């Protein structure tokens, strides 16, 4: 009975430990997943002196809490590294989110008659100074374009197009996930603004 209980506890602990290892950041897993897995297998092989219940006890008391903590620590480190490496992207993302909020609220107020204060007035006051008024206009027109540059910059790669280096080619490296969505949305907004500005000039 106790052996069955020990086996069940051990299997659960191993499953949970492997799942926790898979929850670590990809870069960490690429480097150490097979080694961590091997440590678990070695623990099972050599820890059997203390019996299955002993190994399960070790896994539940030491190994699993430790893997939980290391997962949090490695995730935080990864986030911190990304922030340091891609702070321009974060500023770009913040800029486009602010722009969408500002324009969205302004449009909602005008077309949906939402009972909210004009976001422009809220930002720069009812009787704004010239510089504040110009800055807001500047932000409305150029905000998304600057955001697009900041968001796409980490993925732009300059490379020589030919063996002789006659041509310089700009390549967009593979962009995935939320970054891709953000870049596409920002690009579309930028194109729309350019289109509106051009039409405005022509009329």
């Amino acid at each position: 009975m106790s052996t069955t209980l020990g086996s069940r506890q051990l299997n659960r602990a191993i499953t949970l430990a492997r799942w926790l290892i898979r929850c670590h950041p990809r870069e960490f897993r690429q480097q150490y997943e097979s080694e961590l897995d091997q440590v678990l297998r070695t623990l099972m092989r050599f820890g059997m002196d203390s019996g299955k219940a002993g190994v399960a006890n070790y896994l539940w008391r030491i190994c699993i809490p430790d893997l939980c903590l290391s997962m949090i620590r490695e995730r935080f480190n990864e986030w911190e590294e990304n922030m340091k490496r891609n702070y321009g992207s974060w500023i770009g993302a913040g800029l486009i989110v602010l722009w969408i909020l500002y324009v969205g609220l302004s449009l909602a107020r005008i077309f949906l008659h939402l009972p909210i204060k004009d976001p422009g007035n809220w930002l720069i006051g009812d009787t704004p100074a010239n510089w504040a008024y110009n800055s807001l206009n500047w932000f409305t027109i150029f905000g998304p374009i600057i955001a697009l540059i900041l968001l796409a910059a980490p993925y732009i790669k300059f490379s020589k197009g030919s063996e002789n280096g006659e041509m310089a080619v700009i390549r967009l490296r593979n962009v995935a996930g939320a970054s891709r969505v953000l870049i596409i949305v920002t690009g579309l907004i930028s194109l729309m603004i350019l289109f509106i500005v051009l039409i405005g000039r022509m009329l």
Partner: protein
Amino acid sequence: MKTTSNQISKIPMTPAVFQILLALSEQEMHGYGIMKAVHQNSNGQVHMGPGTLYGSIKRMLADGLIEESGERPDPGLDDERRRYYRLTDLGRKAVSAEAARMDILVRKAQSLHLIPGTGRGS
């Protein structure tokens, strides 16, 4: 031993890093070997978990305190996927500087009769 600025930046080090460096001072080891050595060196008081171990190894490799060893003590008896680690010169100097720092603290504790079981503690 003269302490360089590069070593000073590594001390004081975390207990996990010190324990790993201490274990590797004896010989090069793989991850599980380090875990066992840490347990033995601490008289069974410290159980280093695998997450702490490999997280520390990752940072120590980046800091140049340890390096991967290409040689395998006994390739015939060992799983070839296992990686062995060994101290670098910087790692050896850093663990030595940390041990010296701790020695000063232990001497101070001794002088204050704070270490039990040595005839000088309470």
